[in-house]
């Protein structure tokens, strides 16, 4: 018996198969053929997301040592730990596409890859930890829930776990704010101040308006992205206004009002100039965030080298 002739499919056939998978809303898995641009786009998106988790540990991490009760300290420590975990899953998902984690980290600390610009704002009081949970994690969830249906399997699966944990964090943040609102006048003022500072940056987390978002169309066609920036932003506003009311805080937008015809909330104009400034590295804390991460890599390089050397010796024996 002769071995069956291996029929090697042509590039066109592979492309057709890929298109059919996407069209049927089925998932692409690591062993499947995929267009180079799809792969590159995904690596960029997943890496950016992973970087955001890692950099996102810092604004709250600053408060780990200063949390005002042991219970809040435990909650915050568990949250920061979850974020490190999210970073790990996401880098793993990127590695299934052939990326290398050390290389991605280099790109982060050299400013070659971006992370969510929201983390370039400072955390001034403990209320910021609550508002980051409520608004920033809330916006992240609005962005990420559709990614649980991403066309790329490992990414979609990572996102399911991430979203579940994020929504737990969101509730804890909101609960902190609720507790503070029930506390002293100073605590209430801290909450309002934090909401005033984080509201607009949270709206910016959904990215530029649809008419100025160049990569969106291709991402939506490939089933990597599922909703337009503006639609997700609107959804976030619709969700946050009732939560703000229940909390008893004012959102810093005089134009915010229920549109009686559509039942959705109109809101004011976002300052896209600020957004572009922060995204292009001129936010209040960009330098600090990257420096901390670079230091973690560089100051501990000897540890990584030691671990590698040890592994090599003991594999050799």
């Amino acid at each position, binding site marked *: 018996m002769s071995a069956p002739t291996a029929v090697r499919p042509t590039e066109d056939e592979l492309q057709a198969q890929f298109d059919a998978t996407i069209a049927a809303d089925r998932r692409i898995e690591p062993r499947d053929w995929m267009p180079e641009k799809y792969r590159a786009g995904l690596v960029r998106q997943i890496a950016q997301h992973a970087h955001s988790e890692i950099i996102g540990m810092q604004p709250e991490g600053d408060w780990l040592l200063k949390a005002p009760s042991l219970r809040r300290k435990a909650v915050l420590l568990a949250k920061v730990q979850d974020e490190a975990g999210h970073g790990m899953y996401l880098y793993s998902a990127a590695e299934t596409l052939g990326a290398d984690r050390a290389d991605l980290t280099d790109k982060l600390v050299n400013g070659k890859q971006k992370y969510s610009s929201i983390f370039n704002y400072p955390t001034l009081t403990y209320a910021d930890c609550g508002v980051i949970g409520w608004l920033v994690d809330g916006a992240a969830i609005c962005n990420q829930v559709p990614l649980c249906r991403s066309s790329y399997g490992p990414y979609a699966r990572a996102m399911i776990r991430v979203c579940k944990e994020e929504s737990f964090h969101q509730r804890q943040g909101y609960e902190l704010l609720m*507790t*503070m609102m029930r506390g002293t006048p100073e605590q209430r003022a801290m909450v309002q101040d934090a909401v005033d500072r984080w509201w607009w940056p949270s709206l910016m987390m959904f990215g530029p308006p649809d008419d100025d978002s160049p990569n969106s169309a291709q991402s939506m066609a490939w089933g990597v992205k599922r909703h337009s920036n503006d639609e997700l932003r609107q959804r976030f506003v619709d969700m946050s206004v009732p939560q703000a009311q229940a909390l008893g805080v004012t959102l810093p937008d005089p134009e915010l009002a229920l549109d009686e015809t559509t039942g959705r909330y109109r809101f004011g104009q976002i300052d896209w100039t600020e957004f572009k400034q922060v995204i292009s590295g001129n936010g209040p804390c960009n330098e600090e965030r990257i420096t901390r991460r670079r230091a973690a890599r560089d100051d501990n390089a000897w540890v990584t080298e030691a671990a590698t050397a040890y592994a090599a010796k003991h594999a050799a024996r």
Partner: protein
Amino acid sequence: PADLGAYCLMLGDDALVLCQRLTEWATRAPELEEEVAIANCGLDLLGQARLLLARAGSCGVLGRSREHATDSIPDEDALAYFRDPDEFVNHHLAEADGGDFAQTMVRLLVASTARLALVAHLRGSRDPVLSAIAAKGVPELTYHRDHAARWVLRLGDGTEESHRRAQAGVDAVWPLTADLFTATDVERRLVEQGVAVDPADTRDEVRDVLTMVVERATLTVPDWPADRPSPGRAGEHTDELAPLLATLQGLAREHPAATW
């Protein structure tokens, strides 16, 4: 019950202060995996501290903390946030500055080995709360010790630089073991009642474990220091504790009437 409360405070303060030191690494460890592991150890210690401080409070051992903390603040927080340094009774081992990653892991190895030996025996305590806290602590501390031991092995037997740093860490931490094995009067009274464990009884076991790990890590075991009564247990501390507590307590003390 005052003795029992004081004893819970000793064990609780060791956990709380070491947790604070470890947490300094939570967003600047060498690897993501290590940040997760450090947060894990921190959470375990924090959990032990909370149970022990609450137990101390329910025994009425609150020191001067209630003069500052308002009623709405639970005992665990009154004790953690509203005691001054001279009311803290942790060993110097917990409060010492962390140094580099190697020294941090050596300290974690020593602290978790000593605490594990103690807590393993405490499972048999006549006090049911203490014995339950101990039973919960044993697997946690076993993980901390093994995690730290793995790093000491890798660093001791890794590169030349890491060997040098690991040996420096061992040399820096070893003298602090002098405080670990002499019982206070409180402990002695509780040992007689079958409530506490005499730390002297754990000395050989602790030294054996540490010697084995350090030797396998190709490092030199320094001379063991002579045992002495722990100054920390008497409220006497190094200059390193006050700034640690200032960070820990600052926000809570700024808002004594707040609830969080």
